[in-house]
């Protein structure tokens, strides 16, 4: 679930408020969006992909973490999903190289073509 909006990185564009498909964020009075409805987060990571300055962190857990995460603990992870799908200026779109392995089948099946 969404755990962190980095006030240090955020430029107040409110892109996350717009694109979150489950409307988790509210516009913050100080310009930095606030996580207003964390329970509605579906852990889809799309806010990370759309954030132009890598200010968001979605923990992989479907449920809220028992304790608030410290930004310092995940600093190296911020922006890693956006990078992996090749979004951002000067990057190769991940879609361009997205050729997965062939689907393995269970014994007796014919092997399939590579997953795309």
């Amino acid at each position: 679930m969404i755990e962190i909006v980095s006030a240090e990185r955020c430029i107040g564009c409110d892109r996350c408020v717009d694109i979150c498909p489950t409307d988790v964020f509210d516009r913050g009075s100080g310009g930095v969006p606030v996580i207003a409805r964390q329970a509605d987060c579906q852990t889809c990571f799309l806010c990370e992909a759309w954030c132009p300055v890598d200010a968001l962190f979605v923990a992989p857990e479907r449920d809220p973490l028992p304790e608030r995460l410290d930004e310092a603990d995940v600093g190296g992870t911020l922006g890693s999903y956006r990078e992996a799908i090749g979004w951002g200026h000067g990057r190769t779109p991940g879609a361009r190289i997205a050729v997965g392995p062939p689907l393995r089948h269970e014994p007796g099946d014919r092997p399939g073509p590579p997953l795309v």
Partner: protein
Amino acid sequence: MTDAPLEIETDVLVAEGGPAGTWAALRAADAGADVVLVDKGWCGASGATAAAGTGVWYVEPDPDTREAAMASREALGGYLADRGWMARVLDETYAGMNEFAERGRYPFPVDDEGRQIRRGVQGPEYMRRMRMLVRRAGVRILDHSPLLELLTDADGAVVGAVGQRRQAGGDYRVRAGAVVLATGGCAFASGALGTHVDTGDGTLAAAEVGAHLSGMEFSNAYAIAPAHSSVTKTAYYSYASFYRADGTVLEGAGSTRGRSVIARTLLSEPVLARLDHAGPAEREAMRRGQPNFFLAFDRAGIDPFTDRFPITLLAEGTVRGTGGIALASTACDTDVPGLYAAGDTATREYICGGFTGGGSHNAAWALSSGSWAGCAAARYARTATDRHRVATGAGGAGLRPTGTGRLAAREVIREVQGQVLPYDLNYLRHGDRLWPALEKLHGLWREARDGLVDDDPWRAREAAAMTATARWMYTAALARDESRGMHKREDRPGLDPAWHQRLDVGGLDEPWTRTAALEVAA
């Protein structure tokens, strides 16, 4: 709700902007229609496709290749699919993806001979480009605007819809010549990736104006995910071995046919997986193919290739099950004049039979049915004469209480989940367990009819729609007195030739079923 509703008049209204909805909006706009697209979330990020990646049933138009493609799932689907529809979907998908490559400038990967590989798309990239195409075509998009109900005229034709504007405040009321429902399937907020918005809202709204459904017994798809995570990518688990907590191999477990072994074991003990059949090349390819698959591992400090990690099965209901609104023809028209259905909202039995449409088939279906619905809706809208004739909201449960509300929407959703998520109820089906579950769901429906306590109408409608969907599922599952496709009854093992037919289901307070012929005009 003190604000006056936003009033809009248009030719075609499309509800939801996933793949099916965006293709519908694009085609309707291409045909010259004024189009409004309303999305419960944000068109471009909403739904199961945007969050993931998907294969597309894109098959070269070579007769032998096409024949093999059509034959591949026929047996798995219990021979309920239709070659005429399959051929049309293959044609439409091939043309549509080719067009998308040019018009959407999608950066498909290229093979060794420099040819683009158009058999799959990454969700975020696909859907952001579909949003761009739709906007460029002049479609007006209302984001964060869940549909609440359909509007009908005195003759029962659909003439628009009403919804809620979550961020802007107030309601909207759209008068339209035709409405395309592309609201997705229903996954009961199970946590499966990207499916929180897929709660069956459009299906309930369609049933309220008289549409019926088909194939709702094929509604028990479950996907493998790491136990802590939302990331469902069952295909990659074809590289996995499955273990018990003590490290011994779980015999018979597998990602496809052996999934029921996993379900049965999970009822009483944890199941672990390790992708130990993936060599270095496959590991690299997995990372390129589906980066989000690894978020769940990298961020939890798990190496899925060397560590055993606990897994779960997340319900995907009719998102990767195949049931939905029955169509009258490949125009994607329904029982109700002015109403069209596309994507996971519609039944995909025509191309999948009773087997999952997961991955490539559903993606092809979304593109094809969306395109057909958009064209047909634009055509129909031109015949609609008086846009100002009296229209009435058709919404019932969750919207217009008939008594005193007792339960909150969230409580109803939890109760419905209690009847549809457990493996021993929905996945491993048995009449003795389904009957009591259905009785409980009937009770919840009566609660939803009486009224739900919630400040947000859209949330109450979600609860009502999930309840309705669950009742159609189990009503159909109990009626189909055999095992076929994904619908496996422990008390009715094996195919019964007498059941080589489709099963319609419908009704609100009194759900009904009837058998239906396999042939539907292609």
